[in-house]
């Protein structure tokens, strides 16, 4: 046996450690979600079962209400953010803009500064308008957060559309609007779809803004997770976390199918 034959050992060890670091915590979450009884010093749960699932998803349970609220808020956020991002992204990618530098700066600032001080003051401003604790208030906060990403992804998606196709459509007599609807939009659609999914997930997972603006009247899944977890109710917290986890991981696996590498490389820049 030569030294070369043993080279797989450090490689395997490193991959094993990484797998442990990633899947260890995830396994722990799944275990907690199906645990009936589990206490120290037992390494594994003493009893498995789904009674907590029944409790969480009972018609009168908090989770069902929170899940519906979360999904409704996320859908509204997607409609508003993407509705604003499509025209803005198209203008940034295709049209000559006066004050381009100022516009870019305004759209970059939310990424460059921490948003917690902003949420604190939004909550204070919303309070004066009676928006605190309302669905509308929470949607507005999520839109601000999602919009910036949506604009950048939309800009990248429109930039990746071949301009010659648009010119060809125009030269055979299509109007600007028709060219946009029949040529540009379908080609940019996968990128726009990815941006919608991304905004949806960001809204579904958002904690800080909802905590300041929505709580305690509007309860979303992340707020329910937080309350259950701080009450020491790890089963309910883990079940809620699992519900949030599944769409996130699914998106991670499909993102490259939606966003080609050239679009992906422009996101967040």
């Amino acid at each position, binding site marked *: 046996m030569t030294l070369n034959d043993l080279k797989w050992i450090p490689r395997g060890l490193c*991959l094993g450690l*990484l*797998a442990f670091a*990633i899947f260890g*915590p*995830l*396994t*722990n979450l799944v275990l*907690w979600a199906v645990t009936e009884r589990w206490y*120290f*010093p037992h*390494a594994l749960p003493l009893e498995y079962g789904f009674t907590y699932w029944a409790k969480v998803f009972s018609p009168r349970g908090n989770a069902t209400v929170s899940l519906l609220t979360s999904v409704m808020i996320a859908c509204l956020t997607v409609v508003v953010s993407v509705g*604003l991002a499509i*025209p803005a992204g*198209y*203008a940034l990618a295709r*049209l*000559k*803009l*006066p*004050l*381009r*530098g100022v*516009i*870019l*700066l*305004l759209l*970059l*600032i*939310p*990424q*460059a*500064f*921490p948003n*917690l*001080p*902003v*949420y*604190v*003051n*939004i909550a*204070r*401003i919303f309070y004066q308008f009676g928006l605190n604790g309302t669905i509308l208030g929470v949607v*507005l906060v999520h839109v601000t957060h999602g*919009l910036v990403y949506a*604009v950048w992804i939309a800009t990248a998606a429109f930039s990746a559309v071949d301009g010659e196709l648009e010119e060809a459509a125009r030269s055979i007599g299509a109007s600007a609007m028709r060219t946009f609807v029949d040529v540009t939009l379908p080609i940019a659609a996968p990128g726009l779809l990815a941006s919608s999914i991304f905004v949806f997930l960001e809204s579904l*997972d958002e*904690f*800080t803004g909802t905590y300041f603006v929505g709580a305690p009247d509007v309860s979303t899944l*992340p707020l329910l*997770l*937080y309350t259950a*977890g701080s009450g020491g109710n790890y089963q309910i917290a883990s079940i809620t*976390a699992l519900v949030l*986890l599944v769409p*996130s*991981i699914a998106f991670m696996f499909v993102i490259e199918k939606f966003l080609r*590498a050239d679009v992906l490389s422009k996101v*967040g*820049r």
Partner: protein
Amino acid sequence: MPVPFLGLLLVTPALLVVTLLFIVPLASSITGAFDVDGNFGIGNFQKAFELYSSDIVFTIVIVLLSSVLIGLCSIAIGGYLTLGNNPRAVSILKWLYRWPLFIPFIVVGQILRTFLAKNGLMNSMLMESGILTAAQTISFLDWRGIVIAFVWKQTPFVTLLIAGAMASLDRAMIESARNLGASRLRILVEIILPQVLPTLLVGLILSFVTMMSVLSVPLMINAQSPTMITASMAFRINAYGDYGVANALGVISLMTTSVVAWIHLRQTMREHR
């Protein structure tokens, strides 16, 4: 309609939302920090430093340490993805590293809280396998837990960015360096890294800002003092309704990030012109 005005018309709604719901509250966090009972003053800052100076130091140390670790891990993973000889190991790594990419911080907080606790699954497994005894187990639910949570969650994001940049590099230079007998580590440090440095910097800056904004992780993992200033701000508001000191802490976190934000804004603006 002339084209410049059409463009302006199309971006205006989005700009209005960003201005009203981000720029205005951002400005009012700064004015609010200097507002002491309706008068201009620096009382809030004095109080913030008096009560929370250890939290400020704690925050900066944790975020810097996490950024360094995230940078090192993502260079290592990205480097192996680009230079790895074993195709199977590369594809396993590619599949493996991305799992935490879109997992929300609140979920990361919950799963690491149960995993890293003194009687959590990690210690149980180490005890079962005979590596530790019950007396040797320690809880990681302090500053180490926060750093682990940040590195766990943000490494895939930075890796995704720099692995993309590494993949689009010119392979000819790497191959010729290899043919001349340069080791892979040397190729990574001397040829690849300098070329992907701008991307790495963008990724790390976005992570830095994200970590400065996260409230759920310090609340869930480190429920003791000192803690991160995000948690102190939330406490100041929920317990005392004290927006002055909370805003002063907010301005301190804005100033901390403004250094890196400035680098980011300058570089991105240059690329978009």
